[in-house]
Each structure stands twice: as C-alpha cells, then as structure tokens.
C-alpha cells in the first residue's frame, strides 16, 4: 500500500524554476495495476521516480508500505529500494558488458542471495520471459523486445512487491509491445503491484485504473474493472 499526500517537486536551475509536480495525492493498493498518462512534460517520469524512491519530493508526504520516506537520505532510500522495487525503462538500461544472465542476476548479487538460490531464480525468470536460450548473449546482440524482456526479468527476479515501468513499450513495435504488456499483466495477476507510465491508450487498457496528469496535477482517474 503506497500513499502520497500533496506531493510537490520543484526543479530549480539558474534562471527558471519548474514545478514538475504540484500537489499529487495518490493511493495505490496492493495488487493494483495503475497506468499514468498525460502530455509530454506533465511530470509522469518525475512522479514515477519519486514513487520508486529514486528521488525525493520537494514537499509533501509519501508513505511507502507503512514507512514515511519523503525526507529520507539517498542512502536510506537505497537500502529500502533494494529488493522491494523493480524498474523497467523505455530504453531498457541493460549493462552492455554483462550477458543476459548476468544482467538478470545483478539484483540478487546485491541482495547477497546464496548461489544456488540465485541460479534457480535467475533461470526461473529467464524461462518465464522466454529468453533462456539467449542467456549468454550480450545486450547488443538482442532485439529490442528481447532486451525489454531481459529488463523485465531483471525487474522481477528479486520478487519485488512493486514494479515501476516508464513507457516500457515506447521503443518497441506493436507485436513486441503487446508481448511485454501481456507479461506485465501476468505478473499483476500473480499479485505484483504495477505502476506504469504510458502514452498508449491501448497499453493503458491493461491497467485497472488510469491516472491522468496535467501540469503536475492529477486531473482525472478512470477505473476499469
């Protein structure tokens, strides 16, 4: 269960101050699948980064599964993030020097999971994303869809409670995009909470609920069944 109250985010550069988020109130229940939509520059990524504990809000409160995190240090956030949140990005963000297998293994290494357990879980995740046969390839040797499946495998391997995805289909064709959305849907069916930013109404259709942002504010919320 996560909850934000009057979340603010200000970016100040030398000349201008940008209000990226302007009083966001938002609840996400366990097991929910939420899509965030809105025009470019309205603050979607900013919100997702804060929800994902990658950034601090300028003001407001953020309750993350019972912990107040809005004013935590970077170090505390990193500790909390570890193992509890999985990320999927538009541009995949795989490490080029590591193979598919090694990329997926990475979160478990940082969690100090014992080797056998690690192997089991990495293989499970690869199996599930159907990229087992590519386990020893490097990211550049894969198609965009395969790269994104690897990224999702990496996001789920530590069995996080929450997965955050920022335009996961943005760099993919419709077929690969569809596949990725199905995988996210399956994960959600198994109980993982998912928050996804997207520009595609079709993709948003996979979610239970759509939050529309405009100029850093929540304008509407649509519920599906």
């Amino acid at each position, binding site marked *: 269960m996560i909850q934000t109250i009057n979340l603010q985010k200000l970016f100040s550069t030398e000349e201008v101050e940008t209000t990226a988020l302007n009083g966001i109130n938002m609840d996400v229940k366990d097991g929910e699948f939420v899509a965030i939509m809105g025009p470019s520059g309205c603050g979607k990524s900013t919100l997702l980064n804060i929800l994902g504990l990658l950034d601090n809000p300028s003001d407001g409160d953020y309750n993350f599964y019972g912990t107040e995190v809005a004013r935590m240090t970077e170090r505390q956030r990193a500790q909390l993030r570890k193992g509890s949140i999985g990320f999927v990005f538009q541009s995949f*963000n795989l490490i080029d020097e*590591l193979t598919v297998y090694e990329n997926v293994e990475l979160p478990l290494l940082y969690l100090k999971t014992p080797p056998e357990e690690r192997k089991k879980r990495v293989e499970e995740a690869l199996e599930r994303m159907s990229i087992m046969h590519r386990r020893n390839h490097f990211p550049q040797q894969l198609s965009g869809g395969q790269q994104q499946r690897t990224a999702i495998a990496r996001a789920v391997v530590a069995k996080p409670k929450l997965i955050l995805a920022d335009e996961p289909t943005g760099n993919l064709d419709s077929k690969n995009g569809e596949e990725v959305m199905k995988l996210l849907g399956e994960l959600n069916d198994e109980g993982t909470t998912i928050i996804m930013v997207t520009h595609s109404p079709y993709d948003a259709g996979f979610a239970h609920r759509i939050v529309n942002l405009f100029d850093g504010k929540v304008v509407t919320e649509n519920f599906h069944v």
Partner: protein
Amino acid sequence: MFRNYLKIAFRSLMKNKLYSSINVFGLALGMACSLLIGLWVKDELSYDRFLKDAESIHYVRVNFPYNGETVTNNITPGPLQEAIAKDVPEVAAVTKFNWGDERLIKVGETAAKEKGHFATDDFFGVFDLPVLAGKPKAALAQPNQIIVTRKLAEKYFPATAGQYQLVLGKTLQLNNDKFYVVGAVLENLPTNSTLQFDWLVNWKEQEQDWMKTWGNTSFSTYVRLKPKTTLAQAEMAMKDIYPRLAGKNFETGVPVLQPITDLHLYADYKNGQSVGGRIEYVRIFAIVALFILLIACINFMNLATAQSAMRAKEVGVRKVVGALRSSLIGQFLSESILTSLLAVVLALGLVWCVLPTFNEVFGKQLTLNLAEPMLWLIMLVLVLITGFLSGSYPALFLSSLQPIKILKGVRLQFGSGPALFRRTLVVFQFSLSIFLIVGMLAVGRQMNYLRTKNLGLDRENVVYIPLEGEIANPKKLETFRQEVMRQPTIVSATTTMALPVNVQGSSGDLSWPGKDPNLQTNVSCMFVGGDFTKTMNIKLVDGRDFNLDSPADSSNYIINETAAKLMQMKDPVGKEVNFWMGTGRIIGVMKDFHLNSLHQAITPLILCFDGRNTSYLLVKTRAGQTQQAVADLNQLSKQFNPNYPFTYHFIDEEYESLYRSEQQVHTLVNYFGMLAILISCLGLFGLAAFTAEQRTKEIGVRKVLGASVSNIVGLLSIDFLKLVLIALVLATPLAWWAMSKWLGTFAYREDLSWWIFGVAGTLAILIAFLTVSYQSIKAALMNPVTSLRSE
C-alpha cells in the same frame, strides 16, 4: 560479487582496447623504469656491505692544511700503516696495499695481465673474505705463496674443475720472474665491492726503500676498529702520529677515517671533509625514478578518470537494481587495482627482459630476485597505491551520482574540478619531460665539449705501452725508444711516469731563491723522458725541451704557465729552483695544458727529466697510419721484450675513462628521458583520444555547420598546446638551476644557453602536437552522420 566485478573489469578492458593498452602499458613502462632504477640504486647503496663486519672497516685518508684550506690525500704513505699497527690500540687490524697493479701471470702457455695487490700480513684481519680452499691468512704471511680468486683458479688450472682444494700447491709465475705457490683460493669479489683484485702476494715481495718514507703517498690503507670503538675515538688516537713520526714538512698531517660502506658513494673530499660524490647521481636517479613512476601513475589515473565517464550508465543501472554506494566504490577500486596488478606483472616481465642489456651497459650484476620479500612488498604497495589513486576518483565521483540523472542521459557534468585536475597533471608531466629534455641536451653538450675540447696537448693518435720486463730497464728502454722513433709510421715517442691526461702526483717540495717562506707551493709533478713536448705536441712559450745530450738537464726543470704564475716569476727561464732532482734551472715554460679531468682547474706543473722513473712509452703515430704503427710496435715489442705479451692503449681512451661516471649518467639520462617523454605522450594520446570521443557530437555538429578539418584540429589541439606552454614556463627555471649545479662540478664547461630551452620547448610542443593531432585529425575527418547517429 567480486567475480562479477572482475568480469566487468575484464570486459571493459577488452572493450576499450586502445585505452586499456595505453593505460596498462604506460603504467608498466613507468613501473619497469623505476624498478630498474630502483635496482641500480639498491646496488649502488649496497657497495661493500657484503663484507663481514663492514661497519668496523674504515678507509684511511690524510688531511693537510694548505694555504688556509685543508687538502685531503686519498692515498697514504707506507709508514702510516706500521705506525697505526704499533701505536693505536683502538685498531684491531690494519693493512696497506699498492694501488691495483696489473701483473703478468703465467702458467704453462696461459699468460695474461691480472689485477692484484701486494698486501701486508694483516689483510685478512681487516677483510674477512669468503674462502674456497686453503688458509689465506697463513698463505699471505709466506713470501712464496699467492692467493687467487676462483676466477683465476678456473682460468689457469681448468683441469681442477671446480675442486679448489686441488689448486692449492700449484705454482704460477708472476711478472715473468718469481714462481709462487697457490696457498688459498678466495671466492670472486662481487661487482659491488670497491675492492677488486684476483691475486694477493705479500707486501714485502715488492717493497722498496721509497715506500718506507712519509713523503711518498701511494698506498691504500684500511683499518678494522675494535668492537665498540667509534670512528672519532680512533681518529683521536691517530692524531699524534704525524707530529711524532712524519718529520719535517709532514708534521701537520691528520689521518681521517671513512667507513668503507661510504667509500663508493662519498669519495669527494673538500676542505678535509666528505662532501658526497657518486651519491649525488644516486639521489638524482632515485628522484627521476620516483617522478617517472609518478607520471605513469598520473596517466593511469587520468585515463581511468576520463574513461569512467563512459561507465556512468552502468553505475546508474547498478544503483537502480540495488547497488549501494559502498559496493560501487568497492567495484571501481578492485577494478583499478586489478589493472595496476596487470601492469606490475608486465613491468616485471619488461625488467626481466632488459636486465641483461642494462647490466652490460653499466657493468653491473643486477638481478631481479623474485624470492626477495622486499620486492614483493614494494610491488604490493605500488599496486595498492596506484590502484587506489587511480580508482578513487571514479569510485567516489561516479558512485555519488544520482541514478535518475544518469539514466535520463544527462551529459555527465564533470565540473571544473576534475578538468582542472587533469590539466594540472598534464602540465606536471610535461614539465618533467621538458626538464629531462633540457638535461639530455645540456649533459650531451657537456659530454661533447669534454670529448672535443682542445686540451693543449694532442690526445689523438697517441698510443701508450706499459713498460715492463726487458724494456723497463732504462738503458734498453732508450734504445727501444730510438728504434720506435725510426719507424716511418711514427712521429715521436717519449717516456713518462704518469699519463699526461691524468697526472696524480703532487708535492710541496718546490723551492727557489727568494721564495716567500709562508707561501705553500703544491705543484703537480711528472717524470718524463726525451721528446715529451714534441710527442704530446705541447707548446713551449719560452725556452726548450730537455736534451738527452745535455747532462745538466738531469737536474733542470720545465714548468707550465700556471706554475710560473704561482712562483711569481716574470721570466722564469734560466732561474734557479730546487726540486726532487736537486738544484737546477728552469729551461722551458709550457703553455698550460689540461693534466686532469676538466672537473679540475689546471694546476701548477713541474717536469723532471728522468729516464728511470717511467711506467709508459707514449707514441705519437702518423695520422691515418695508426694500424700500421701498432703493428710495427708489436713487432718491436716482440723483439725487445719477448716474454711479455704486447699491450697497448690509446690516450684518448684513458681520457674518456676519466668521465666514466658522467658517461653513464649521460646514457641513463638519455634512456630515461626518452622513456619519460614516451610515457607522457602515451598519457596525452589517451587523453586526446578521450576528449575527441567526448566531443564527437560537437565535432559532428560543427562540421555540419561548415567547420573545416583544420578548424577542428586547431580547436582540439590548442587546449593541449596551452598546457605544454605552461609546462615550459614552469620547467625552465628548475632545469636551469639543476643543470647549472651539475655543470658547476666542472672547472671547464659549456655553459647553458637559452637556445637549449628553446629547443626543449619546441620539441615538447612538437611532440605534444603530433600526439594530439593524430586524434584530432581522426575526429575531424569522421563523417558527421556517423558521429551524430551514435547519439
């Protein structure tokens, strides 16, 4: 986890092959260089420390007051040793021996000149050398026994095949004269021993009356102090020896001791005290070694830092999937330590490869002893230091970045700190390179000056033959000389006691009517035979050379201009003087010529005409006919002196050997200077490559907007050239100071001039420009479409 780091480290090494190889190779080169110098320094510092109880062994010199200063005699008169043995209870043992003589050793058909000493009985009381067979102490006490080293034993008695016991009792003939029985075999002396000989025979075997006088200083004296006796106590106890025993003219002598472990490095005495010597070179090279290492490390850091920018994405991803800052720091540090480990291994390999050549050039026996824990300790420290220094910046800086910023693809803002740091490093290493270039030029120029300087005498085409055997007999010698002069290939020949480019003997005995009794006159002196000035082509400003047909000349003298000045004589020819040959007249004044190395100013010189006190026949050959002349001399030598092998040397070689130390320094400066420049260039090259890469997009855009190739090259090169100019400004005063100091050790020198700095600066700029422009041109020629697409 660590395996994951290693994997990443290895793969990023492989991915950027150019950077990685520049980086690892540059560091390895620097390490190899400093390791080599380190070995050399260690060897220099280890001189004579192999001797058992080395701390208690001391070398004896004698100080004399001279016109308000103190001069130090580095060799001692014969009776001093006896006086010390008798009267100084602080001394456990004392020995003297003559200055390393080469004597003919003959066993059956094998005959060659070998270096050895005639030493007094207590030699082994002072030097407890390792023995392979026999009892050296007892053997030295015997008048008919000889002690040889392993080298001689193997050379003259090969049949004994390493069983040195069997060498004992064998006989060998010394100087074609007396036969000696081998009484003991010693282990060879290591190259880091100041003591160098292959045979020892009892002192009495060659002792002559003049060796028993206080006025003749020719011998090396060494003492071993009793346990718990200090150098000061022993010197105190020796203070009264000269006043008590040495007699008139010498009563002011004060023996001074120098620990034998300082003998090699601190041999220069000024005003009665050790003022250093070779240690200066050791220090300079130790510093150079450190600087080269520093440059290499700096490059390594520089490149590692520059390269780390490309690792930003990886850092961001790692953070997002759960890496804490500490684990990232760990990763970058272990990576850079791994790289420096690789460099160390490479460096060891390099040293191992070049060591044989190095040993050959510098006459050393340096070894890379892998069993030595110290080596490993140093290597470990080196790995850790370079690893930490080079890894710390990326580790601390990159790990502190916020992942969202990195992943958003924001161009990494390295800020002005690191850029300034990188620039400072470039300036630093180019300063050092310029410094070394100046050093190379100045030392080279001085060496050239030494080689080509007109000494006031001819040293080209002068051959000298040591006089021994039959031709050492004065009567026979003169016939021999006359015969030599009759050869058409030979211009002239003369005999001397000392070689005229390195006159060592000096005396305070010169007097003349009307001499100021307070004036001390220390003059260099030489015994010469007929035709000396003619053979050496020395100009006579006044008077004439000695004449064999004039019996009075045996007590007449020739002086040089400096001597005339010292004696304050306007018109010295015909004036009466008293010196070693008795009272006679000055018959000639020579134009000053250099009678020592150019470190020393020309001293007053007096020539005595004496055909008996001679060691060498000096022969001036006709230019271009030296080969034939040597063949003729060989022929005559066989005829006049059949029992001795014909040996000859060139005065030129003797002259150059005066500068052996400088020659070595010259070689070292050249090699290491080039290496330092090479390493600096590698660093600059890598950095330029990095900059060009970082600015690929900018270059692409500029080209699309119409910039020409030369615009781009200029843009990329100008930054670096500015840095080199700053380096030039910084290095110039430092190099000026250091080289002036070095040149100051020469009484005659080619002073520094501004063009040297100009050349050094131009060279550095040229090198830097070439290094950078390769990258700049490559970047400038790149198709802008590719560079823009890569974004």
